């Protein structure tokens, strides 16, 4: 199905099932521990051996030799595969670092061997008996030191966030110099780790030259192509299966070392092998969100009209890597005639920087939305009024191109009302509650809506049961449930009549889980397949398919009625199709918007920051399931609190690695850090987006929240911290006197 004109009325608009806060259909499995994750699939292959991955102890250099005698002789060892056994393997889709093969070390904890043994304990013990002779070389590990020499580099996250090396509209320098009110500040965001709860894990089994991977991956079709390319085998010989993914956040968009080494280990051992990356390996072996150094300049007239805006960002990555596209949203978020965005990219020998939830916007808006707060204060304007004044309904760089919908001002106004913004004292440090200094902060939320081809197959059996099959993944996002709701609505059945099967590369290829495109595009793919199935049902029954109404498990056309079970009684009916998008995404700017509100208390003695209240008001098209969508948003808000207040991979600048590479050293928010969170979805449908009239929401929830936290801390204390995370050491020396 080609979607190239805005949607009109269709069966989804009935909203009998779609749009309702249904409990997750996979909930009873997740809550009873019976949902199978990659490493625990004892049933899929007999005689599974255990692989243990050894990571490099140096960040850059070469391996001269690996001494394996003791490890080979250790009890239970079945095979050892080292990186010296083969030339460097090709890279898969989207990988920057090479995953295995050859003697060159690109980054710390790069996989250099897998030891396969009968038990986990034996594999682990043997791996630590390997002695490695390294020839280390000096590397570049300090972003601030490399930044002055970093060349201009453009980039695109592939997730709707991108910018050229330099982008100019009008005369930024002239307009900025002439502006009566100006801001010129620098901001820094930290390297961050996805820290998903389930480690990267894979069981690999070979059947002749055919490979099956039971793995944990967000993008099955990418993964299938990638592992084939890495291993040099035809993609048709590979199957991936990933029905449950224990969190990804961008960290499982790609094939990583667990999959490669499970496959190589299984080949070498001649039996199935399962590999999980150990927790201390993950931060350095896999990918992370790169740190940024940003500069923002804003010039405005005295009435608050922005006349000049510039956003520049420098990040680092391995050779061939991309920049963190932190300036991208600044091209679209606020009006202003004279504009500049620019990115620079330093070569660093740290682990690979790559996508983490809302790459680009997440760190970019942590800077931009603080700059907007600072500018509002300089102008003597309320920060909401300042944003609304500079709102735009068109692409500021290309005013002929409108937003399909843009309810940013509504989000901010409604949020202000619900949050009690009118009661905020704009004077910093003015509100006390016992020992606590209390402040409120606001930020805009912004993230683009991406449209990707997505296919599905829908089956109808003689019991009237509908089965959806697509390689779409559910990484906690609620895919199982919203796809069941979509099929139920389209086929006119109750939710419990729908079975959803996901994550298998033998199923039609979906858009996968990334860039907050998953819900809208994969549901649209199921919609397209259901249209085909409805036609097949009508044809089987001899009904006119244009007149057929599907409701209550029945099909009606004119005065004729038949049950779905009857339609499929003579044999299963199948509909398969893909949604493909035309140029509506080019003709209109499709984005999602939010107003983010945060109240913090800051201990007047210790500068400890406690988040007291949080609210997000979101405008993101039709919300397919308010319960699961709300969870996406509160989860993103939680991760944003981490970015703002605690998360930072600390770089050892001498030896070139992230020091705090486990869940004790890398601090993420815990229960005690997060208050009750409120989410409001504006009642919105966007017919330009898709037949579902929905848009993404899973990343909108993180974009801007960190800035709102920082602005609340400033409102509470009068201390402006522009270097995230806002840990108490950065506040303490400048805190107001405790009473």
């Amino acid at each position, binding site marked *: 199905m080609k979607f190239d004109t805005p949607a009109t009325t269709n069966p989804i608009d009935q909203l009998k099932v779609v749009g309702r806060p249904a409990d997750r259909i996979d*909930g*009873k499995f997740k*809550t009873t521990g019976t949902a199978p994750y990659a490493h625990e699939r004892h049933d899929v292959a007999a005689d599974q051996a255990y692989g243990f991955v050894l990571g490099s102890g140096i960040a850059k250099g070469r391996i001269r030799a690996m001494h394996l005698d003791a490890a080979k002789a250790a009890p239970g060892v079945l095979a050892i595969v080292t990186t010296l056994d083969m030339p460097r393997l090709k890279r898969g889709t989207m990988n920057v670092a090479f995953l295995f093969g050859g003697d060159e070390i690109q980054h710390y904890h790069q996989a250099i061997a897998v030891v396969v043994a009968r038990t986990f304990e034996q594999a682990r013990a043997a791996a630590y008996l390997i002695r490695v002779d390294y020839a280390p070389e000096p590397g570049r590990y300090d972003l601030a030191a490399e930044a002055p020499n970093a060349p201009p580099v453009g980039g695109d996250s592939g997730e709707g966030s991108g910018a050229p090396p330099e982008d100019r509209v009008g005369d930024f320098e002239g307009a900025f110099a002439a502006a009566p009110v100006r801001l010129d500040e620098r901001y820094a965001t930290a390297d961050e780790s996805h820290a998903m709860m389930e480690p990267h894990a894979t069981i690999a089994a070979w059947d002749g030259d055919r490979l099956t991977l039971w793995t944990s991956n967000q993008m099955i079709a990418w993964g299938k192509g990638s592992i084939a390319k890495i291993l040099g085998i035809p993609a048709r010989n590979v199957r991936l299966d990933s029905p449950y993914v224990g*969190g990804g956040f961008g960290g499982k968009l790609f094939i990583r070392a667990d999959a490669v080494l499970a496959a190589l280990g299984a080949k070498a051992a001649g039996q199935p092998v399962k590999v999980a990356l150990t927790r201390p390996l993950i931060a350095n072996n896999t990918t992370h969100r790169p740190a940024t150094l940003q500069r923002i300049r804003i010039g405005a007239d005295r009435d608050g009209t922005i006349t000049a805006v510039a956003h520049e960002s420098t990040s680092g990555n391995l050779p061939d890597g991309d920049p963190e596209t932190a300036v991208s949203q600044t091209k679209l978020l606020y009006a202003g005639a004279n504009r500049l965005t620019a990115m620079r990219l330093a070569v660093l020998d740290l682990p690979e920087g790559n996508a983490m939830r809302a790459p680009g916007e997440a760190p970019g808006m942590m800077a931009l939305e603080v700059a907007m707060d600072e500018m509002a204060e300089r102008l003597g304007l309320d920060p909401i009024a300042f944003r609304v004044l500079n709102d735009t309904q068109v692409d500021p760089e290309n005013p002929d191109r409108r937003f399909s919908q843009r309810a940013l001002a509504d989000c901010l106004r409604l949020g202000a009302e619900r949050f009690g913004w009118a009661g905020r004292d704009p004077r910093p440090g003015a509100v006390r509650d016992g020992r606590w200094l209390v402040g409120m902060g606001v930020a805009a939320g912004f993230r683009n809506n991406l449209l990707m081809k997505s296919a599905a197959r829908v089956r109808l059996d003689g019991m009237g049961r509908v089965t959806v099959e697509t390689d779409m993944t559910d990484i*906690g996002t609620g895919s199982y449930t919203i796809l069941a709701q979509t099929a139920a609505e389209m086929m006119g059945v109750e939710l419990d009549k729908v079975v959803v099967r996901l994550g298998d590369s033998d199923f039609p290829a979906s858009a996968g889980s990334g860039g907050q495109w998953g819900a809208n595009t994969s549901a649209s793919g199921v919609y397209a397949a259901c249209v085909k199935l409805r036609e097949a049902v009508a044809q089987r029954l001899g009904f006119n398919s244009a007149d057929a109404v599907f409701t209550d498990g029945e099909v009606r056309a004119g005065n004729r009625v038949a049950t779905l079970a009857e339609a499929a009684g003579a044999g299963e009916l199948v509909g398969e199709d893909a949604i493909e998008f035309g140029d509506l995404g080019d003709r209109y700017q499709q984005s999602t918007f939010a107003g983010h509100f945060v109240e913090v208390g800051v201990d007047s003695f210790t500068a400890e920051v406690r988040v007291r209240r949080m609210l997000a008001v979101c405008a993101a098209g039709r919300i397919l399931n308010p319960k699961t969508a709300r969870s996406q948003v509160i989860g993103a808000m939680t991760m944003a609190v981490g970015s703002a207040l605690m998360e930072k991979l600390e770089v050892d600048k001498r030896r070139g690695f992230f020091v705090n590479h486990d869940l004790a050293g890398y601090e993420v928010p815990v*229960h*005690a850090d997060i208050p*009750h969170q409120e989410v409001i979805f504006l009642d919105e449908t966007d017919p330009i987006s898709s037949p579902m009239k929905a848009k993404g929401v899973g990343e909108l929830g993180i974009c801007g929240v960190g800035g709102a936290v920082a602005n609340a801390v400033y409102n509470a204390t009068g201390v402006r911290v522009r270097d995230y995370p806002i840990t108490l050491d950065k506040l303490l020396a400048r805190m107001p006197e405790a009473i």
Partner: protein
Amino acid sequence: MPVSLEVNGRAVSLTLDPRVTLLDALREHLRLTGSKKGCDHGQCGACTVLVNGRRILSCLTLALMHEGDHVTTIEGLGTPDDLHPMQAAFVRHDGYQCGYCTPGQIISAVATLDEIAAGIPSHATADLLAAPQVTGPEIRERMSGNLCRCGAYSNIVDAITEIAGSQG
């Protein structure tokens, strides 16, 4: 080495490498994979189980140390067709997303309410002489050893609060 214990009411006897953790005994030897390995270092709480009625991190204890112990895992609380009230509350309140931390959260949630009922104080208990109450701060403090990177905390607290209320 041999070890005998009771898991979810069933007597089991295993012969194990002494290095096998209780978590790996459950997951790899008994194939009770509901208890999750998120870190294997006692940092995330995903492996939380009840041993003789008290919650522990099963990755931080060796299986051989539990001769004769009674272990309850998530599989012992309820099944997909017969959910424990706390499991049902997690479903109603969407107290999970990816589901990987969920078994540990649910075991900890059950234990948290038991600990409060038993009068065991926490860091969030203001008055150590009074019986601790089921409050938001008490629940959040006692649940803080169970990480949820998807960020379902607000919903998890709602689920636990509902069950605490229904228990009177």
